[in-house]
């Protein structure tokens, strides 16, 4: 439109100046950054760093972090074991059933977590569809146990995992499947030796996404699993409860979670978050 060499200024040239139009974009962009960064800064600024260590050793903190780490790791492992084959089958299916299954699996993603917790109670609660027979036959009660915490986390994070991994599996050229099949590989061997390695980066990011979702899980957990220190009180629940009588312990716990989250984000840098 305009030559790079300096020429006689034309009317309107100033308005089209690239620097100015970039400034127009910088304002909303900067506001967006502020909206995200300010609360995090607030967390750091309002923390009483002098007593941070003692706050971190408050009795509520360590059991909550330990429970969160254990349950989220089990959740991610379950997502991998159950979700990867599911994602693989979905990525290679085109029928109407697959479309419906995909839609159903997406529901927990858009469902308010508290509603998810109620749904879990209706299924696995002591009077639930699955829970009642379990309770009557074996005296097995799922709510108020760490198992319930894991169930709640799997419910909310498995869809994230499957959606992410299915995308990665879909990107694996289906002709590799065909070649592997002509070489004598069974579907299981194709899955293990071809699809898994080729989709590994996608699986890693899916696992990270699922883990992050599980770590932050609040609504479904508190509704379905309850809140008891040591057995079902995960870190987010502990933060919420501690906020009412020991805000500094809540802040310390929040900072600890923030640190763990940053650590994971750092590990994913260059792979998932470019």
């Amino acid at each position, binding site marked *: 439109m305009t030559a790079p060499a300096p020429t006689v200024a034309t009317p309107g040239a100033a308005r089209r100046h690239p620097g100015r139009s970039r400034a127009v974009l910088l304002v909303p962009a900067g506001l967006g950054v502020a909206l995200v960064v300010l609360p995090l800064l607030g967390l750091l600024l309002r923390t009483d760093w002098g007593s941070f260590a003692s706050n971190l050793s408050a009795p509520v903190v360590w059991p909550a972090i330990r429970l969160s780490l254990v349950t989220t790791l089990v959740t991610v492992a379950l997502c991998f074991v159950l979700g990867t084959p599911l994602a693989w089958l979905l990525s290679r299916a085109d029928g109407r059933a697959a479309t419906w299954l*995909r839609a159903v699996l*997406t529901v927990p*993603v*858009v*469902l*308010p*977590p*508290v509603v998810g917790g109620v749904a879990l*109670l209706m299924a696995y*609660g*002591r*009077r639930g569809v699955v829970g009642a027979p379990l309770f009557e036959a074996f005296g097995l*009660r799922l*709510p*108020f146990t760490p198992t319930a915490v894991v169930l709640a986390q799997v419910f909310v994070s498995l869809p*994230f995992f499957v*959606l992410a991994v299915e*995308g990665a599996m*879909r990107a694996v050229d289906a002709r590799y499947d065909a070649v592997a099949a002509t070489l004598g590989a069974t579907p299981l061997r194709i899955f293990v030796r071809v699809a898994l390695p080729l989709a590994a980066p996608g699986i890693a990011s899916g696992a990270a996404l699922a883990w992050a979702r599980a770590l*932050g899980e*609040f*609504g479904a957990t*508190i*509704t379905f*699993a*309850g*809140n*008891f*220190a040591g057995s*079902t*009180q995960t870190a987010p*629940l502990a933060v*919420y*409860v*501690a*906020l*009412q*009588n*020991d*805000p500094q312990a809540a802040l310390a716990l929040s900072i600890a979670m923030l640190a763990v989250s940053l650590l994971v984000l750092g590990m994913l840098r260059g792979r998932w978050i470019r």
Partner: protein
Amino acid sequence: MTPAALRPLLLAAAAALTLGACSAATTADTTQAGDDPTAGGSGTVTVLAAASLTAPLTALAEQYERDHPGVTVRLSFGSSTTLAQQISEGAPADLYASAGEAPLSLLPPDAAGDGGRATIARNTVEIATPPDNPGAVADLRDLGDPDLDVVLCAATVPCGKAADDVLRTAGVTAHVVSREVDVKATLTKVVLGEADAALVYHSDVVAAGGDVRGVEIPAADNVFLTYPLLWFSDDPDVVGFADLVAGPTGTAALEAAGFLAP
């Protein structure tokens, strides 16, 4: 739209819902435009009150607005502790009604200002069981049965403190499986039959209607919770609403909701 194109959208929606589900306090705004805005005062009275007072205070606010056209009573309900913290962080409030005296310590020392204080109600602790009472709970000692699942409010909220006090006084170690964040969550576990018993306030049992059955605790073992009302200014409508709540009309409304007279 392809599933791939949909994915980021879904993730964004999910993130929004995750955040939304964590809001702690519910705000009921009974704002009603007067028939004739020039007919009376045009003040707004802001009330922060314990969640258990939702039903009676909402009714009283509507009555006050009817009697004083042009005046708006804004109500915000939540955990007493959370509300006290919000006030100390500078949240605007003309009146504050707390469940128990303890949260008052979180208010700034000079909060009372030109206002005043009254006790508007009392409450007692009661055992709530599912309507069919599957654990056959008859008194407080039964809560120690390890076959029964008992849920209590978290120790950080008034109903949790009161439950702990009652159990300590009675010398009962209950088989507690969960400390729920508020009284509603506690009752929900009982209503759904996941828990055999909960310790809540009598007013909560009344509010739950037929969804739970109440098992009374003798006064000797029980603790009483008082409900102080604080107002922070001498504005006529603020004082007027305080008088209504603390007066006979207020007491009647509170008693109908399962509270005891102060």
